[in-house]
């Protein structure tokens, strides 16, 4: 518990910055949504955009913008969310594992009677708490906005299906970034490798929207397991995606425990 508290203290500020920042963005969109719908400007602008671009941002004109979630599906839970969670988890794994290995600060903890498994477990818990805070606050802010204002009409079930799916996505990516962070002595190398894989995943998602021929590329990306368009339409494979994300999380977590437990550390 002491270890978890101490590690969380180290990342508290950036975690709160991400959670509050994204939540304020969601709140702002929710507050603007009724007036945007009244003017019809948003739909007119989206009409002017090529369908490939809309697909890349996970806008679906079929569903329209009946609720604020339809707007957020494209304006937050698409590409923006993928970039934000990638940066969020890359920076967390760097701060908690890659950087302390690189600059030797890890010795503060490893000189104490703490096993490496205990350290890895504490980091995984801290990353889990951070992810839950981010996704949980996002969901709460939208619920509060819905109670507070009229014209937003959020379906709570859909909202929390999105949040749970998003959280499991964060768990899977978090476990991946943690695993990569345990592989190298240098923070730069860990950050580059994990960052490259995540950027490639995002690029694959964008490319998959460009034509029907490239649509299969989506399935090479982890982000295909969090499809807000399908979640909003109710055509998603929520359970399958959740189980797959959990499996990915467990595989990478196991990798992180094994790798960090047996590697030599020159700190």
């Amino acid at each position, binding site marked *: 518990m*002491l*270890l978890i508290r*101490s590690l969380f203290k*180290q990342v508290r500020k950036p975690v709160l910055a991400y959670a509050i920042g994204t939540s304020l963005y969601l709140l702002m969109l929710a507050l603007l949504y009724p007036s945007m719908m009244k003017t019809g400007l948003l739909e007119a602008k989206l009409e002017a955009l090529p369908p490939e671009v809309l697909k890349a941002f996970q806008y679906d004109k079929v569903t329209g913008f009946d609720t604020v979630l339809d707007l957020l599906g494209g304006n937050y839970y698409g590409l923006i969310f993928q970039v934000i969670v990638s940066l969020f988890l890359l920076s967390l794994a760097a701060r908690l594992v890659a950087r302390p290995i690189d*600059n*030797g*600060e890890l*010795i*503060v*903890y*490893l*000189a*104490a*009677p*703490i*096993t*490496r498994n205990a350290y890895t477990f504490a980091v995984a818990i801290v990353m889990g708490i951070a992810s839950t805070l981010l996704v949980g606050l996002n969901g709460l802010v939208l619920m509060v906005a819905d109670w507070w204002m009229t014209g937003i009409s959020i379906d709570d079930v859909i909202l929390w299906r999105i949040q749970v799916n998003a959280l499991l996505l964060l768990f899977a990516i978090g476990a991946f970034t943690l695993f990569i962070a345990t592989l190298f002595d240098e923070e730069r190398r860990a950050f580059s490798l994990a960052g490259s894989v995540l950027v490639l995943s995002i690029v694959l998602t964008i490319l998959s929207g460009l034509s029907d021929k490239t649509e299969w590329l989506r399935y090479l990306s982890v982000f295909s397991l969090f499809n807000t368009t399908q979640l909003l339409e109710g055509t998603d494979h929520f359970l399958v995606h959740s189980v797959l994300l959990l499996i990915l999380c467990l595989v990478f977590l196991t990798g992180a425990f094994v790798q960090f437990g*047996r590697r*030599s*550390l*020159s*700190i």
Partner: protein
Amino acid sequence: MIRLEHVTKEFAPGRGIFDVSFTVEPGTIFGFIGPNGSGKSTTLRHLMGLLAADGGKATIGGFDCWKQSKEVKQLVGYLPGEISLPGDMAGADMLDLMQRLHGSDPARRQLLLKRFPFETKTKIRKMSKGMKQKLALVGCFMKDAPVYLLDEPTSGLDPLMQERFLEWIEQEKQAGKAILMSSHHFPEMEKSCDRAALIKAGRIIVESDIHELVRSSRKTYTIVFRTEVEAAQFAMQVGVEPNRMEVSFQTDETLSLNQAIAYLTQYDVQLIRPSADDLEQVFLHYYGEEESS
């Protein structure tokens, strides 16, 4: 208490530590001496369970340093060679964290802060090297551990703090602690250690009682003559090059001190200066010998 048996770790061909063995008993201070990159820190990292050996075994208190690192670390206070601490934390916060992680004694912390005082409210990022070293020393010794592993413990300390450090470890030794200390600072090693090992290129060259080591070493003397002619003549007799009116020479099996004194009776000697640092001579002797072989 501390035992290394034929520990080998090869990072790259010829780089690492090879067949390193020694023991440190309770109530003794063991000096670990060697040039930069010779394998001192690598050896200490094995004892802290940070590195897995390719061969051999390291134990502390009977616990395997790699497989039972938690039990080992319960027995050990460790001072790393490079003090890397989170820069955003204040000294006091760092000590609080260390105290909680190690279950250290608050009374001991206060005592140590009186011995090694520094501004505990300062952020670590703003601390000088000496301040960080004092912070690390307090953090290490506030844990009342039966074993201390100290990597360059006086690095960055001023002479007064170095003296206090020596007094402190002497007390710890009297209390029955086993202390393994690596250092380049020969006078302090000579003053504090009971035994010492010299390591070069990852191999222990010699391990012995420190006083035995110093006694068996060659000694260097510098003689100042009244004239350069006398200096040149004496230099020829002892087989070295003079430096104007000064001649420096070493005693060894071919030239005893008695022999040199017999030569000197023929000259007008102004000054005889023995080398102040005997352990350094031992080090240079072994280091030089290995270099030439």
